[in-house]
């Protein structure tokens, strides 16, 4: 049975294909359209999924959409009415999109892919819950989902057992931790739905001296739930997500080009701490209700690796699972699996051990792309490749590393990665100046051999999807200065030999040379662009940056 899952029209559009309960292909539309966080109908991703799944369009048994459009539409209309007349302009801008495609998904499917069969709609947060629990290794687990907003819900918790998911409680719009985070992100001068990670990075640089002010605008109840004081926000009222009252409380907002001051770092730190406190409170309540050791997290908020690690550290849960595409792109996966496992009552037969579900390319295709761009290259066997690249990395060279299938989700996990030497204290500046052009406060993440993760980081659990941030052990800090954030933490990826053997062997070779089983791993893209998908994208990225080497499978290109 072939189920096509789709998420789109808000941000991070994606498609995935489930064949007999197993995930065979999944990718975000942005990787093909080259429009970051693309919200468009994922036509490219769908084409890819069908072709990668070696099925035809007529073999699709069911298409599942990751939310209920009419329910969401009711929230949009009601919230705009409530905010009238301030919301009128927003309303006029939003409505055509709803009428054009968002409310007529079956017609869009018929038009775009010729599909006339059954279309199902699963609630947004249920899709999130399913995207985590149904691919987790747990038979039974507590589930917590949180993001900006789905239809009405902004946070849900419940329990999963076998192939069933029960939602116990929902917190609804406009009370949303995700929207709070995004509102402060825009207040701090970053782009909504893109800059949240930057705020998380900025938080590490500040002191949480504004937490009381956040307590003033968000009322937290004894059961862990919360309420946003709407006088401080303006979610539907105009161009800003925060109100004048918010500015009066926190001071002038930072303009996107403005200087980052200490105050901005402190606000970010306070927001981060405040969100973590609320989440820890809710998770403790959830444990009391479920008394289960396993926790599944999903929704954009749980791309926040600092919060995830704090939840793991400070709550009674012993095991945690966060799916790599925890944001809306993963909704496509959850919706499809929910239909297969829960609605159709098929037992679960799949655990997500890795995130490599995107396109891959043959050596012939890679060579062709290199020749087309007039690049000379060397083809090296695996053993020599690992030795050679590890040696170059140890000499502070920056490597574009393109291998196998592209990752599903926002993190580059060793198949579309830029790699560097973590032992070099100046590597962040080098990467920023030569390639990434990032803000200086943002740290780079370490990819560590799974077996050595605890030796270097205060990490009790594996973090294969780079979704846990842990403190670097005191005695190792001087070994890996390139990946330590100012607060002493690092966003760790633990690399498993079976899940990604080429990446594992490369890190191992690096360890043989330097004694450090870690590499700097950052996404293979330039500022403002999606992660590369094809060899062509990788070559263009390589040519436009100052990377020293490009490794496409076993073909090595050296920058002249």
């Amino acid at each position: 049975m072939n189920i096509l899952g789709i998420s789109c029209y808000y941000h991070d559009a994606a498609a995935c294909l489930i064949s007999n309960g197993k995930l065979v292909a999944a990718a975000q539309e942005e990787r093909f359209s080259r429009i970051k966080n693309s919200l468009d109908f994922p036509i490219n991703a769908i084409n890819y999924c069908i072709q990668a799944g070696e099925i035809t369009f007529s073999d699709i048994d069911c298409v599942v959409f990751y939310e209920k459009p009419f329910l969401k539409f009711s929230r949009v209309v009601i919230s705009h009415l409530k905010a009238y007349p301030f919301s009128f302009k927003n309303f006029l801008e939003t409505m055509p999109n709803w009428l054009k495609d968002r409310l007529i998904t079956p017609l869009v499917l018929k038009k775009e892919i010729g599909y006339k069969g059954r279309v199902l709609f699963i609630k947004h947060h249920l899709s999130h819950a399913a995207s985590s629990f149904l691919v987790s290794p747990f038979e039974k687990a507590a589930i917590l989902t949180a993001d900006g907003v789905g239809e009405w819900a902004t946070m849900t918790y419940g329990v999963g057992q076998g192939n069933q998911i029960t939602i116990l409680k929902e917190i609804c719009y406009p009370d949303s931790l995700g929207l709070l985070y995004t509102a402060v992100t825009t207040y701090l001068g970053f782009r909504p739905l893109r800059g949240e990670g930057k705020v998380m990075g900025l938080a590490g640089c500040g002191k949480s001296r504004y937490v009381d002010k956040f307590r003033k605008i968000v009322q937290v109840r004894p059961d862990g739930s919360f309420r946003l004081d709407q006088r401080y926000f303006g979610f539907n009222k105009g161009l800003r997500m925060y109100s004048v009252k918010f500015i009066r409380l926190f001071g002038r907002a930072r303009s996107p080009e403005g200087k980052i001051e200490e105050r901005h770092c402190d606000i970010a730190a306070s927001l981060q701490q405040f969100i973590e406190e609320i989440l820890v409170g809710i998770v403790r309540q959830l444990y009391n209700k479920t008394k289960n050791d396993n926790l599944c997290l999903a929704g954009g908020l749980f791309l926040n690796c600092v919060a995830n690690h704090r939840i793991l550290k400070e709550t009674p849960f012993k095991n945690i699972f966060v799916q790599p595409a925890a944001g809306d792109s993963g909704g496509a996966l959850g919706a499809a699996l929910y239909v297969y496992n829960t609605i159709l009552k098929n037992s679960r037969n799949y655990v997500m051990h890795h995130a490599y579900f995107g396109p891959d390319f043959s050596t012939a295709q890679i060579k062709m792309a290199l020749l087309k761009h007039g690049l000379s290259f060397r083809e090296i066997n695996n053993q020599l490749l690992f030795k050679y690249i590890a040696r170059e990395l140890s000499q502070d060279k920056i490597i574009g590393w393109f291998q196998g299938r592209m990752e599903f989700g926002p993190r580059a996990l060793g198949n579309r990665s830029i790699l560097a030497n973590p032992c070099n204290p100046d590597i962040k500046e080098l990467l920023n100046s030569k390639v990434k052009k990032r803000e200086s406060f943002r740290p780079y993440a370490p990819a560590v051999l799974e077996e050595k993760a605890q030796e270097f980081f205060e990490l009790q659990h594996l973090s294969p999807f780079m979704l846990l941030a842990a403190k670097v052990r005191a005695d190792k800090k001087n070994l890996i200065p390139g990946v330590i954030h100012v607060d002493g933490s690092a966003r760790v990826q633990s690399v498993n030999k079976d899940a990604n053997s080429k990446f594992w062997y490369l890190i191992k070779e690096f360890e043989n040379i330097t004694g450090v089983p870690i590499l700097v791993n950052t996404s293979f893209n330039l500022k403002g662009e999606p992660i590369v998908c094809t060899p062509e994208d990788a070559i263009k990225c390589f040519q436009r940056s100052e990377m020293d080497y490009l490794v496409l499978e076993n073909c090595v290109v050296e920058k002249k």
Partner: protein
Amino acid sequence: MDIIGQENINQMNTQKICQRCVLPENKPDVWLNERKICNICIEYEKTKSAQGDNKVLETDFIKMLNQYKGKAKYDCLVMCSGGKDSTSALYYMKRRYKLNPLAFTFDHGFETEDAMENVRNAVETLGVDFLFFKTDFMKDMFSEILKTNSKAVICHPCSIWYMGLTFDMAARFNIPIIIAGWTKGQSTKQPTMSKCGCNIHQKEFYAMAKSTREFLDSYTKKHSKYKNFSKSMEEVLIRAKKKNKCIVLSPHWFLPFDTMAYVEIIKKELKWKPPRLSYPKKTTNCYLNFISVYNSMKHYGYTHYHVEASKLIREGLLSREEALKSLEINFDKELLNKIAKKLDYRFD
């Protein structure tokens, strides 16, 4: 073995060849700059950077198919030569898109036994209706081209004729779509050929197309048998438009699969066999193709296969090395004369 094209290869080796594609200099249409890159490649780069990547998707193809699916007895007419590209096109139409195709093959008297066997196997395995048309109609014209040492490329009037014939067949059965197995290198403009014209208007074809046109203009006037013969592909399309508004598509323009992938499928599913004798290597063509290649090399220094391969190289779908290898002349005089005998001609 007396490799008949060796002198032409030698000629090509001494000729200036584009360092990016495989086209030799052939002024005024094809010329190389100081970096030995041809004007076609330079023009391609300019157009490409101006237009950006214009990716087409399988769903674009499906959308077009769905416009016509189920509206006539046959959903499409598949031009099937028995080669890998057209056989796989027939396979895709039947199995991947679940259409009801009518397979159409013609034989002008020079088709190979291998190709015909592949067609037979494919239509039998797929269980599709099959229309086979055999005629000597073109024989006199082919013979004239050889005997007069015309620069007209034999394949051009043949393409004009069989395309016209295909449109006629589509009109007769009221079929809305013609499916060809053309690769991305065999047409300049996509996705539908009937809307856009065909690739003989490319600069690389100017000289060849001009000679063919001149030959057809004078020859068809003299011979009443060919009085209604179209003088160009453009004319075929104009005539076809009047008869039946059908479109011409190739699945290979829309599918990302490489040749190896679909060759494996048709080998396994349709008992397809690669030809024993072919030029370029690993392609299936009629016997006249060898004569056409010989003449093209003699008159122009390159063939339409060089044009196709060059386009594939520019698109990043074929390496230059592979192209040069597949374009090496590998047939002998004996074979040419055996074929030419049917046309009362002998190569000295």
